[in-house]
Each structure stands twice: as C-alpha cells, then as structure tokens.
C-alpha cells in the first residue's frame, strides 16, 4: 500500500542498528579528514610513501613540519592517479647508481642533498633541459640521477647553494612552446645511490646531519623553508593540461602582501622566502585560490582578516559529497505500522468527499495551517491559486492579524477549513514518510506525496504536498493530531505527472488492513482515471 514507505527487506531494529553502524563507519571514514597533518591524503587514496625513511622520521620529530609540503607526486589525485602505482621508491629502484658523485665532500663530510624537480619535465629531452637550466643558472651544477617520475623530471644536487641557485632559475626559462619552466627544490634526505656508497657508521652521521638540517634555527638562507613540491598544490581540473595546472609557485603567480605573509607564520612557511611565488596559486578566482590554500594548510582558518568563506570547500573535496537519498524513514516497526495505518484512514476520509469525519482525528485544541511557495516569477495564477487565499507563508505575510487568522485553531475550525479545500484523491503509493521525532508523548512525521484534484476547473491536475503532523497517543492505539501543516506545490518542474497514480491494490502490505469493498471500488474508479 505504501511501497515507497517500505525499506527493502522490511525495517527492523536490526536494520536500524546496522544503519547506525554504517553511519558510524561513514563518519569515521570522513572524519579522518580533519587530521591536520596530511591534508593531501584522501580517504580513498593510498598511503603516503616517501622513499626517504630518514627524512620521514625527521618530519615527524622536528618542529618544522615538512610533511604537509612534501607530499610526493605519487599521492596526487586525479589524472595522475593511475600513475601513482609507478612511484619511484628510491630504495627499490634499479637504476644504475651514478658514479659522478661519491656522496662525500672534499673534507669527508656528507653534503646536503636536494632534489630538483621540473614539473611536466617529461616533455623535455634531458640534455636540452639541463643545458637550458645551466645556461640560466649562476653556478655550475652537476645533476645526479636525472630521471622522469610521473610527469616530471628530477635530479639531485648536493649543495644548498647550488640548489638555491637552481631555484632562482625557476620561471626564467622557457620551452619551445614559450611556456615558462619552473623549478622546485626539496631536501632529499639521503638518496639511494648515496646509501649504497656508505658504510653503516656513516649512516648515523647522516642522520645526525639530517636532524640538524631540520633544526628550526637556521641562518637566513634556509633552503628547507622554501616552498616545495608541485604535487601538493595541484588542484584537479578536468581536462587540464599543464598550462592550467596550478602548482605552488608556478607561472609567476602574484602573492599576498607582506602583511598577509605574516598570517602564514604559524604554518612554518617562513617569511624568509626570497621570492614571492610560493605562497599563492594561480587559480582563476579567489575562492579556488583559497580552496587550494586550505587544502595545503588546514590550520589556516582566517584569510584576509575574515573567516575563510569557503572553509568547507577544501580542494577537490573528494570527501564532501551528498549522502545517498533514501526512502521513508521510521524509528521503529511498530510506529511505522501505526503511522501508515493512520495515514490510510486519514486520507480515506479526506478523499471521501466529506471531511467532517476527520473531527475524531484531531485534538480539541489542534492547529492547522496551509502554505504554498512564494515564487516571485509567478505571474499567472497557477493551478493552486485556490489555496492561495488560505496560504500562510510568513516569509511574505507580515500582518500579524492575518498570521493569526490563517492559523486554524480548534478541531472545529480546522475541519471547517479542510472542508472547503478542493476535493482530492491522494496517491498513497507515492507517499514518502519521514518519522523524525518521537517521545512517549509525541510523534512527528512528515508525508511527501502527490494528489489529484477530482473536481472543479482544475480537475485532473496533479499537485504535490508535504504534510507535517504532530500527534499524541490517542485512544485505542490511534493518533491524535495536535499540529498539522500542509504545504502544497506544483509538480510541473518534476514532469512526473504521467507516471503518478498507479495504485496497485496488490502492493498493500499485510500489516495494514485490506481495503474494504468500497475502498476497492474507489481504487478501480481511480485507476481508470489515471490514464490522463
């Protein structure tokens, strides 16, 4: 009888519990997003893998948190995801070790390694690219372990000042398509080829050196504080080619004023960046600019002196989606039956042509009101204009007298009002019921469905309604209505009129009493009409 009101397999307490557990899982999965440490991680992505174990350890321990920045391109979502599996784990890579560098400085200590990355460098020939860079670079450099990973080209250099000089080349070189080439710099820990050269005691030295590098108190030229990887800043845009990707520092983006930079202090970006490119991104509009920033720096809640307007709009929002819409919701099987039975009886009387029978359904001091939507674009009186004079939409109705008048009070007034409303036929099969509040004294439920007008000028027209009932336990396990609010609207925007009104008696639930003969006759009559 109420096919839409039934959950598949029936709705039992077990289902409620299972649903509650599912809801818990849903929450837990998405609440992990609130972790501030790895904003680039998404619930469905694989784990962050950083081949540099030592560096990773340093990330965790040191007050300077590199982790938010050093998300490798392997973890990038979107178009690169399919390449994520081919991430370069330096421990496992089988490339022949470069012999050009032994990993030792002339004085025997280990220099500091930096990974230099050219975004989308995969399009460039290695020799051509390195020549181009060297031509622009103020100091000679020796690239180590040049390789392509995902879409980028990378190599290592072993010297902070060389790395810095290379970083300065960023944006000053162009490819043959006249696109600027950027260069990113990242402390690289101990590259694998260095590992292989070293004896174990030197590894300890290196770790010590690494910890020192991570020390917050550094001199002015603090390479580690420079902005890093392109991957973390990427915002997925559909069909985006390299020219529209927005990496940190890419394409010479403009940046905030010095005052704004201060706001970033708390997230260890450092105010000592020599050039301005790292901070902002080159999105087309402010909101997505902020989005990508928020994605990176979840601690940032205030930008430009006000609370971030789209604080909930973080990056590609892979975790933000609308929950699946479900059918009727009932708190319990017993109450469901009670409500469905009530509705069946109520609408039987309501549609019968004589609504006086509803007097027994209402509390003596019940309230009823009716409303229709206010649409400023409505010029022509619509099919439900006959409801208009009774409509109590306090959004537009300001007069307190009318507001009082249009709220019907006492069951006599209510039933009188209902009796003058157009004659209707409700489609019980269209009913969707939400039982949304219950205590031992009160039951709140809302019914959504459609009805047809069966007489008058608008005969045959279908309207949709949402009716909210508040009821108290009545005599002989019935419900007693204390509040009744009816909202009527047009269905034209849904275009589903022809599909409605397909009452099928055999779909009635066994938990609801079968229709009497009179009821069945009504159904037959009605089904015959439903072709139009």
């Amino acid at each position, binding site marked *: 009888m109420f096919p839409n009101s039934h959950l598949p397999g029936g709705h039992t307490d077990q289902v409620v519990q299972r649903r509650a557990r599912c809801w818990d899982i849903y929450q837990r999965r*998405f609440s992990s997003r609130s972790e501030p440490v790895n904003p680039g991680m998404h619930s469905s992505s694989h784990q962050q893998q950083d081949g540099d174990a030592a560096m990773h350890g340093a990330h965790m321990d040191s007050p300077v948190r590199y982790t938010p920045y050093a998300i490798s391109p392997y973890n990038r979502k979107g178009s690169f995801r399919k390449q994520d599996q081919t991430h370069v784990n330096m421990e496992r890579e089988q490339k022949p070790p470069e012999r050009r560098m032994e990993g030792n400085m002339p004085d025997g200590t280990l220099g500091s390694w930096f990974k230099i990355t050219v975004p989308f460098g995969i399009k460039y020939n290695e020799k051509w690219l390195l020549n181009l860079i060297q031509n622009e670079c103020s100091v000679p450099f020796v690239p180590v372990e040049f390789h392509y990973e995902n879409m980028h080209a990378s190599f290592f250099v072993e010297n902070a000042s060389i790395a810095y000089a290379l970083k300065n080349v960023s944006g000053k070189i162009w490819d043959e398509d006249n696109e600027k080439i950027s260069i990113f710099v990242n402390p690289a820990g101990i590259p694998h080829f260095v590992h292989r050269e070293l004896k174990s005691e030197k590894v300890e030295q290196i770790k010590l050196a690494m910890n020192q590098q991570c020390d917050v108190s550094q001199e002015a030229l603090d390479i580690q504080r420079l902005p890093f990887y392109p991957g973390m800043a990427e915002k997925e845009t559909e069909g985006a080619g390299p020219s529209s990707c927005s990496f940190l520092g890419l394409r010479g983006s403009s940046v905030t004023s010095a005052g704004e930079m201060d706001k970033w202090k708390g997230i260890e970006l450092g105010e000592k960046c020599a050039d301005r490119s790292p901070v902002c991104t080159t999105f087309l509009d402010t909101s997505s600019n902020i989005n990508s920033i928020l994605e990176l720096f979840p601690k940032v809640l205030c930008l430009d002196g006000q609370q971030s307007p789209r604080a909930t709009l973080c990056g590609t929002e892979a975790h933000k989606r609308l929950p699946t819409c479900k059918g009727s919701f009932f708190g319990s099987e017993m109450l469901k039956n009670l409500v469905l039975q009530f509705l069946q009886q109520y609408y039987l009387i309501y549609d019968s042509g004589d609504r006086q029978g509803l007097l027994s359904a209402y509390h003596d001091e019940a309230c009823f009101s009716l*409303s229709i939507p206010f649409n400023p674009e409505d010029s022509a009186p619509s099919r439900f204009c006959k409801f208009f004079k009774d409509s109590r939409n306090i959004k537009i109705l300001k007069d307190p007298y009318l507001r009082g008048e249009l709220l019907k009070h006492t069951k006599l007034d209510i039933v009188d009002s209902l009796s003058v409303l157009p004659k209707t036929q409700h489609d019980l099969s269209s009913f969707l019921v939400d039982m949304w*509040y219950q205590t031992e004294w*009160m039951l709140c439920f*809302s019914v959504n469905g459609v009805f047809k007008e069966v007489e008058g000028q608008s005969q045959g027209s279908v309207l949709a309604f949402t009716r909210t009932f508040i009821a108290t336990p009545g005599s002989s396990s019935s419900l007693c209505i*204390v509040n009744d609010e009816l909202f009527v*609207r047009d269905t034209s925007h849904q275009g589903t009129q022809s599909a409605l009104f397909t009452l099928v008696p055999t779909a009635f639930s066994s938990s609801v009493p079968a229709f009497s003969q009179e009821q069945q006759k009504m159904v037959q009559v009605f089904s015959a009409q439903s072709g139009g």
Partner: protein
Amino acid sequence: MRKYRSHWSQGDREGYQRRSNYYEGPHTSHSSPADRTREEVVTPTLPGHAATRSQMATSLDFKTYVDQACRAAEEFVNIYYETMDKRRRALTRLYLDKATLIWNGNAVSGLDALNNFFDTLPSSEFQVNMLDCQPVHEQATQSQTTVLVVTSGTVKFDGNKQHFFNQNFLLTAQSTPNNTVWKIASDCFRFQDWSSS
C-alpha cells in the same frame, strides 16, 4: 484593527518592531543586522515564562504563543540558513546536544554526528521561499515550549544540481528572565525531487 496589541507587553512590541528590518523578499543569505554574529536564536521571554520545565507556564492567550512562534521562526530561519551557507562549522551550535536530523532518509543523531555530517556536506547556497510555523501543543511537549517550523525553497550544493527542498524543525525554548534561546531538537530535510537525484 489589530487584535494583538492588547496582549503585547511593551517589550514585545519593541522586539517586534526591531525585526521588521528583516522583512524582505525571499530569503537569501544576507548578513544579519549589526550585532548578530553569534549563532543563537533569541527572542524576548514571554511574561511568566522564565520558568523551569517543571513549573506550569501561565496560561497566556493562544495568540501570544502564535506570535512568539512567528518571531522565533523568523529569527531562526534568518540565522540558520546563513550559518549553513557561510559559517557551516558553527551550525551545530543551533542544535541541542541530543538533536536528530533526518536528511533525505539518513538519520544523524547527536552533536558529534551532526558535526561530522555538516562537515562532509558540500558547501551550500540556500534560498528560502516559504516559511510557516505553529506553536506545538503542550500536551505533546509536556509544557516544554516548542515551535514547529516548516520551510521550503531551493538549495544548491557545490558539485550538485539545484534542488527544491522541504525542511521541518522542532525548536525548543530555554527561557531565562531576559530572553529565550531557541535550539533545534529535531530536523527533517528532504529534496522534493529526491528520487530523481
């Protein structure tokens, strides 16, 4: 002829006048008047209502309850949808601790769950076209002052098409001598075209 005036205290009338600033067309998320930065729905306390739940409220004229309900509803709708659109994180301040939400058939219960839920909901733009309200009969509420609020309009969640929606709230009052704070005890939200979304 205004039947109501004789039932209003002076304070009530002032409160009512002040809110006339809100009266415009369909609600869009515009800023509330000056000082309203906190997320609270507050109306003047009715005489005799600064009472705990165990005390019986004085029996005022029904129309006074109606008026109070309208005030609460209007104040509430202004704040709720603006908070939902622009300060989503503060939204759960409008809910009771044990409040429940049925959102397109999904049940969410308690503040923690509500916080998570609203956090995962994409950003929104609401437009309210209809608002109706009724005072809930005390037999159902055991004298806990409650208002039924019914709204309807359109909403656009980021990344989704626009929907028509209906939403119902039960607001319950916590009254002090100075004012009444309204919070959501329960909330039911439905897209009107949910089955085709």
